[in-house]
């Protein structure tokens, strides 16, 4: 299992090397995704591995960043053409500080893929038992904190959000009783759920106030849009086709997803069920005004952008056709 992932990494590395040397007459597109390994953010990689970009004359190079802020930065200063899946917050913060970027489409709408869990024998049996309990989120201002706060508000719960860092550290803190409720993003810890070590208390999709809000977007550098707008559009068109294919051929993509995360195929299939196709639709950003308010609350923006600025920032170049 270990070697499978490593072999994959090695292939990726060599593929990258081969690509940079050979391949002419292809349009080069440099894409940064956040958190490679998640179902939605790994789609460009899957599409590339299947050779679909190449067929369309695109030479796509994918690197991945560990968070939204770095993703935005990789487009601003790191020579990336497209930033895939940064959070709205980081994009707004970058934009008001003069970053030369535009939002070209929604990447992910609503909250899916994350779940909150307790120890199997925890006295917390349902969300109603959460009053006075500690609930983990990754870091202040991060997406997970927003989710916990929204949940707290809409269910009128007296829970205490606590920053616990990465998923593995959070897991330790739950297992050792330092915190009551942990968070995880699939496929991580699904095996622990299946083994009965931990129990899912609620899923992120149950946070209703966030279910119709675009959480993550895709951005492109102004320069890229000005000089090669057609290439940018083509990239999303091809990728959209790939995502359709991924949902039509779940067995095969679940295998790629499983390999990438070094997990069992069954677990991968189980994880994919957390995401419905429409969550990954490209197109206009939903609930942007509310997102701006949240960005102000979380310290990414000082005040919401005026409409003229919003219009400037938004440059939607591609929309998924309704099925």
């Amino acid at each position, binding site marked *: 299992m270990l070697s499978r992932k490593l072999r994959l990494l*090695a292939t990726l590395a060599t593929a990258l090397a081969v690509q940079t040397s050979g391949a002419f007459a292809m349009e080069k597109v440099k894409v940064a995704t956040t958190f490679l390994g998640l179902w939605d953010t790994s789609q460009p990689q899957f599409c590339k591995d299947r050779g679909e970009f190449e067929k369309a004359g695109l030479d796509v190079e994918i690197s991945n960043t560990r968070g939204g802020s770095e993703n935005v930065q990789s487009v601003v200063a*790191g*020579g990336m053409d497209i930033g895939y899946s940064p959070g709205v917050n980081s994009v707004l913060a970058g934009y008001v500080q003069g970053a030369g970027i535009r939002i070209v489409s929604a990447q992910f709408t609503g909250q899916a893929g994350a779940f909150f869990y307790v120890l199997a024998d925890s006295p917390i049996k349902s969300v109603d038992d959460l009053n006075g309990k500690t609930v983990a989120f990754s870091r202040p201002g991060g997406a997970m904190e927003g989710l916990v706060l929204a949940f707290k508000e809409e269910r009128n719960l007296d829970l205490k959000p606590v920053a616990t860092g990465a998923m593995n550290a959070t*897991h330790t803190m739950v297992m050792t009783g330092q915190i009551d409720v942990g968070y995880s993003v699939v496929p991580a*810890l699904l095996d622990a759920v299946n083994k009965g070590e931990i129990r899912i208390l609620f899923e992120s999709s149950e946070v209703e106030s966030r279910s119709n809000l675009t959480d993550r977007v895709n951005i492109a550098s102004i320069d890229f849009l000005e000089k090669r707008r057609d290439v940018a559009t083509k990239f999303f068109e091809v990728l959209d086709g790939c995502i359709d294919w991924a949902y039509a051929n779940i067995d095969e993509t679940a295998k790629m997803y499983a390999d990438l995360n*070094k997990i069992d195929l069954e677990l991968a299939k189980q994880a994919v069920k957390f995401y419905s196709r429409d969550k990954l639709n490209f197109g206009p950003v939903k609930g942007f005004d509310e997102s701006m308010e949240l960005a102000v609350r979380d310290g990414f923006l000082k005040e919401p952008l005026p409409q003229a600025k919003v219009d400037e920032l938004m440059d939607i170049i591609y929309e998924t056709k309704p099925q």
Partner: protein
Amino acid sequence: MSTTSSSSAFLTPVRRIKIVTILVILAAWQLLAVSGLLFEGVLPQPLQVLGALYQELLSPSLYYDLGITLFEAALGFIIGSAIAIGVGLWLGSSNFMRRAFEPYIHALAGMPKIIFLPILFLVFGLGIESKIAKSAMSTFFPVVLSTIAGFLQIDKTLINVGRSFDLTRSRMVRMIYIPAMLRPLAVGLQLGVAMSIIGVLSAEIAYASAGLGARLIRYSDNFNISSTYAVMIIIFAVAAFVNYLFARLQEPFLRHERSKAENAARPVVPVEQT
């Protein structure tokens, strides 16, 4: 301190202590891992780590990451120490300039360089350029400080001899300054090597898509704890090996002035300057 003079037998008391210590550590590790004191999965057993280490060593991508890290560290070291020696000679040779700028260098040298990473990432981007810059920055400070210190300890008569021969500035540097300050410079460079590796790793951990630091953090993020330990062991071994290699490379240049007794205290004293 060398009590290891009795090299006739393989199992000198010192060797025996080393071996026993390693065995004790391994046993304690094994016991702790199976004791249930720490919750399962957090501390793998030594054999599991050995297995992961074996897998790592077989994997071609490890050598790719290793190559990236060493490349970044080496280039950063060369750039950083070249600038540092230049600046150090300049400040060392001018009393005025030294009084003007040394305080700033001292101030920066005692700081955690890692907090400059955001600036390096912003200015040099997220690719290998920022890692090289971090490595150069980490190398710069120990080398520049030891160059200045080295310059100041040069015997004044040596400099006067050079002047009396009407040597040009570049020949002064090559024939008088550098040879006369070889020892402190070597100490600074040795420290610079260690720092260049640490500097690169810290940048790779904060953000990178390749390199040993990135590999480590990727395993850690993926809950792959045995491989995390394995990569850590590899990193420590590589760092130790590079330090050792560099020390050996310097030896021929320093042999005529290095005595064993001095050597014992060597690793400790100069580091104060960081």
